[in-house]
């Protein structure tokens, strides 16, 4: 595997303390027939160099739009209306399209859920990886090609030199996602954004891709911002987690803390609705009643209040801020309960029995 020093671009040393990505009270809105709709509201998060952060939420939580806002890939009707997105020291909000093109691919790589639609069906994968290198790095055709083979080897494409001439349809879903990762890493970005990278894949292939993402981070030091709906995937890959609900960050903190002792009732309910890893057909699955509110009819107070089991009068009228937890660890939650010291009960997945798989 190539080391960082062989990567084509030089970049600031990881030693400096500036986060790779810092999103501050971001609002993103889309123009619709019924007026502007705010899809992301007051979202803040940071990713430090080499760190792996997961954004988790259900559909409509705003997690993908947050990622697209960072990449400047919002549709023409979408716009960042408030807040700042800083990549190292550079403000990305308000950047021209031209300037953004230099950021995408070089400083930030991105992979998407569906590798089939992201690769161009009429070009060979060799051409596409080579192109990704040559757009940003001043390399000759031959050098770019060598680097492409190196990248394909790194992401685990068997027999990469001959696979260079294969077209996307000749590869399986997992292989295509590997090619996408190779393209995203082509210029040695500081940050890799992965939006549901394994959702379209089978579970055995998912395990391989998650392993590749872990390895990439360990060996290249690329920071990872992972967007997912799957809490187990978060547990497998991330160090810190940001939980989003209805466009807002409702909780964030170290994965081990958030998944074992959630402070926001939504996180707790989400954890409870995951089928436990025990064979017990007598118990019903715990559900979160109701559905995510539509952006047109957001509740005035806490956005989770209509579905919350711990709802109080105050929750319905006043929106809670995202506040740091009193225990001083790097945790925040958006809940009036955080004032009191009682975390929502009955949610520790650590107490679940697990099955050892003999091998």
């Amino acid at each position, binding site marked *: 595997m190539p080391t960082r020093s062989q990567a084509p671009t030089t970049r600031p040393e990881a030693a400096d303390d500036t986060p790779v990505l810092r999103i501050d009270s971001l609002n993103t809105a889309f123009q619709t027939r019924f007026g502007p709709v705010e899809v992301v509201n007051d979202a803040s998060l940071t990713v430090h160099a080499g760190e792996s952060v997961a954004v988790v939420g259900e559909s409509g939580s705003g997690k993908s739009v947050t990622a697209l806002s960072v990449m400047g890939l919002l549709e023409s009707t979408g716009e960042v209306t408030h807040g700042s997105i800083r990549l190292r020291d550079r403000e990305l909000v308000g950047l021209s399209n031209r300037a953004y093109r230099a950021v995408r691919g070089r400083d930030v790589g991105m992979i998407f859920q569906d590798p089939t639609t992201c690769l161009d069906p009429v070009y060979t994968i060799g051409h596409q990886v080579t192109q990704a290198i040559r757009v940003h790095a001043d390399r000759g055709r031959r050098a770019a090609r060598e680097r492409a083979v190196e990248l394909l080897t790194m992401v685990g494409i068997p027999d990469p030199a001959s696979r260079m001439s294969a077209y996307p349809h000749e590869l*399986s879903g997992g292989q295509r996602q590997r090619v996408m990762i190779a393209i995203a890493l082509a210029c040695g970005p500081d940050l890799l954004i992965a939006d549901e990278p394994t959702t379209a894949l089978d579970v*055995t292939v998912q395990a*391989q891709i998650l392993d590749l993402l872990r390895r990439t981070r360990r060996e290249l030091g690329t920071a990872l911002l992972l967007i997912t709906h799957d809490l187990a995937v978060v547990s497998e890959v*991330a160090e810190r987690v940001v939980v989003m609900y209805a466009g807002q960050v409702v909780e964030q903190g170290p994965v081990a803390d958030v*998944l074992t002792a959630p402070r926001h009732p939504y996180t707790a309910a989400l954890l409870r609705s995951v*089928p436990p890893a025990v064979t017990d057909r007598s118990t019903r699955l715990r559900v979160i*009643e109701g559905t995510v509110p539509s952006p047109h009819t957001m509740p005035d107070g806490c956005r989770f209040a209509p579905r919350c089991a711990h709802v109080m009068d105050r929750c319905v009228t006043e929106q809670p801020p995202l506040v740091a937890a009193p225990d001083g660890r790097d945790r925040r939650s958006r809940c009036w309960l955080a004032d009191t010291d009682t975390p929502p009960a009955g949610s520790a997945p650590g107490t679940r029995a697990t099955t050892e798989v003999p091998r």
Partner: protein
Amino acid sequence: MIPETAPVESPHDAEPPSGQPLLRVNGLTKHFPVRGGMLRPLAGTVRAVDDVSFEVRGGETLALVGESGCGKSTTGRLVLGLLRPTGGTVRYSGRDVTRMRGAELREHRRRMQIVFQDPFSSLDPRLNVGGIVGEGLAIHRMGTPSERRGRIAELLTLVGLSPRDAGRFPHQFSGGQRQRIGIARALATSPEFLVCDEPVSALDVSIQAQIINLLRDLQHERGLGYLFISHDLNLVRHIADRVCVMYLGEIVESAPTEDLFRDPRHPYTRALLAAVPRLDAHSRPPERVGLTGELPSPANPPEGCRFRPRCPRAVPESATARPALTEVAPGHTVAACPCFN
């Protein structure tokens, strides 16, 4: 490990939840021809389902699990009589589905229905909910129009919607609500058996739990048999009585759910279980990825044990003969590959 016993004909010795098998599938095989263009009219065959046998009793849930392309959905369609098998039989209440024609096949389809994976593409956007749910009633000429309206209202209430929803259209509903409509549609003709083809994999986790609970309640109330097709082992563990693991068109292991998860025997089953991401992964050392490579093409399956090219334990003898299903514990059968020894 595997006792030297003859391949078993009927692997289901476990105590049935109730009565006789409602569905008995024997040696089911489906090959799809691959057309190669004008000069090569037949380029090969995809062996989508190859000699698959299982039984489901009334009130029982049998899960078919496996990766995409393993033949689990094709099996579901064969059972429904939506596809004609290349070989083997599907007997439902003692009658052979594969030989049914005309009125008899229509009656079979009334008694066995399907819930599809994608609640967005499986509901006709031009019909209102009443039309979608009532379509089966009209086709099977069940009741007068006013009786059908009453039945539609009843069904919508049953799945947790409101009778008023009958006049609305699918696009006005969320994914979870649409799946409820899909379930109401499937239940309209009072079937005894549902094929559930990945019924919740398109839904959010919190909504998945709602739909799974609904399916379970319906099973308890009506004694429905389910053929539950899924790739999600966590979910299967929660809903199935028995599990059949499929790989490249074959069943490689079949067992009561608890036995399968407690004591998986086939290397593929073990790899599949090991690959499931775990909520407590952050607190344990990262596991080695057990399985390399991906599912080979079913058009050209490996000789002998089909799992051999990806199997961490493969031995040369694995290539010689197709492993026969062997009973290793009551109700627990496994394709006994030579690599077990």
